[in-house]
């Protein structure tokens, strides 16, 4: 049973039968298959970062260091899981016509929560991410998952879908952040203590020292170019698999 069929069963059913569909006990092996499909979709085949190209604004803007990328990735991960769970819970009670504003409101409240949390516990990171924390609200990936999956599927699957999509997005952020930080500064995990606390400062790795940093990698054009290369690599691997 693929993800699409999960959609369709939920999609075609009206409210009553949808509730009924929830109560239908799915056999354990089919359930496992659904989780496998969701992971495959979120992490690779339908990766929000490099396949759907959603949420490019934060993806390109804050990945100048691995720490920033990780911070924003975790925040987005939290928001997408929580919003998927909440939206899945209320999906039978939201009138179809106003569902999008309702979803946005839920996402916005969650983002406000994460913003206040980051303000309280990781203040330096909060400052360096700046406007891009509130901008998680506008990340199309989150509203996309809410509309395309959470509003049509049960809570367990929605939460898992949120986790996998969030992880896929975070993975791309980490890859970009690491690549750009290595190229621009020659370090990894620079400033990690702003995310995890002072104990983590041992994680900062200096790969090489240079007087002249490769500024382009730290600037937005570098992010676009690196992003393009990552997408190309993904397509290359896909082609290899198909040709085998």
């Amino acid at each position, binding site marked *: 049973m693929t993800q699409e069929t999960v959609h369709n069963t939920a999609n075609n059913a009206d409210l009553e039968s949808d509730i009924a569909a929830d109560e239908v006990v799915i056999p354990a092996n089919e359930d496992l298959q659904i989780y496998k499909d969701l992971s495959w979709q979120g992490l690779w085949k339908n990766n929000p970062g490099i396949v759907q190209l959603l949420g490019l604004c934060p993806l390109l803007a804050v990945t100048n260091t691995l720490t920033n990328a990780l911070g924003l990735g975790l925040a987005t991960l939290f928001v997408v899981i929580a919003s998927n769970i909440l939206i899945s819970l209320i999906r039978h009670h939201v009138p179809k016509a106003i569902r999008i504003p309702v979803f946005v409101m839920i996402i916005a409240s969650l983002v406000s929560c994460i913003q206040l949390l980051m303000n309280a516990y990781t203040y330096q990171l909060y400052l360096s991410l700046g406007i891009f924390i509130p901008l998680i609200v506008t990340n199309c990936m989150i509203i996309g998952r809410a509309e395309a999956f959470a509003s049509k599927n049960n809570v367990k699957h929605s939460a898992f879908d949120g986790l996998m999509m969030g992880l896929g997005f975070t993975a791309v952020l980490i890859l970009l952040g690491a690549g750009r930080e290595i190229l621009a500064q020659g370090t990894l995990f620079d400033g990690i203590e702003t995310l995890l606390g002072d104990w983590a400062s041992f994680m900062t790795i200096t790969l090489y020292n240079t007087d*002249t940093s490769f500024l382009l990698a730290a600037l937005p054009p570098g992010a676009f170019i690196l992003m393009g290369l990552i997408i190309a690599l993904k397509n290359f691997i896909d082609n290899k698999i198909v040709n085998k």
Partner: protein
Amino acid sequence: MALFSSTSPHQRIKRRTPEIMKMVILGLTPGIIVHSYLFGLAIYVQIVLAVVTAVAVEALFMTLRKRPVMSSIGDYSAVLTAILLAIAIPSLAPWWVIVIGTLFAILIVKHLYGGLGQNIFNPAMAGYVLLLISFPVQMTAWLPVQSMQAFPVTFIDTLSLIFTGFSVDGYSVTQIKTSIDGFTLATPLETIRNALHVGETISETLKTTLFSLDSLQGSQWVNLAYLAGGLLLLKKQVIMWYIPVAFIVGITIFSFIPFASDPDLYSSPLFHLFSGATMLGAFFILTDPVTASTTVKGRIIYGLLCALLVVVIRNVGGYPDAVAFAVLLANMCVPLIDYYSKPKVYGRKRT
């Protein structure tokens, strides 16, 4: 008066890509020779470095793409890109600057877009902009003319400066670019910009000894040499006159307007024409057959657009020279320009 008419085809000599590229390289030589005479031999080292890198990368990438290697190297397009980039950057920049620039130009800008004929952006200029943005210190270390250099720079010194950063006697590039009387010299465009920043007027700056001693004359001679090389290309019909003429006329007109309104804040058209990369750009960079517009009307629009951008960026932008930025921005407009300047097919009404 004897009129003669002939039937088509009128152009009977069909030039192939390698020949055109070689002619363009030939057209560059007067400029390169004058540059090396005035500023030292370092430019040749840069050219050699760039060409070697470009050919190696081209060969490697064509092998990876499983395409014929020899024909691609033999068309000299990579060599031309390398030479253009090498003469655009400061001659004493460290070796890795030109290597990174050439790698980017050939790999990313040319081959990732599909190779020769497919690239949207001029590879040499995209490489130059990458370097200018990434390494501002190295990319603004312009030398004064040789007679003004505080320390004589021999060829061995040049090699040593490019590969280790210091001359044989241990002077750095910054020290070398300082003139006899201790002023750090810059290109004329930079000098004007810096003077304007500290509140001096252009007429004041032009009168100072610093400026008269500056490499102004050097810059003018180099520009004249490129103009000569460009005229040679025109004479040989390697390039068409539309783009260079539109560009030069455009620079003259667009720079005259602010100059006429306030000569103390904006430089004269003559100054714009013979400083920076104006002439190199007009004849050798804008005329790139791949990235420039292809229709007659389009070429004129393209040249004028570049000129406007150059004047605007030079006068109010953050960088002293602007040809590279102008070319890249105009490259982006080329598909649009081409679309709207398509000549009418004979016998058909415009739809």
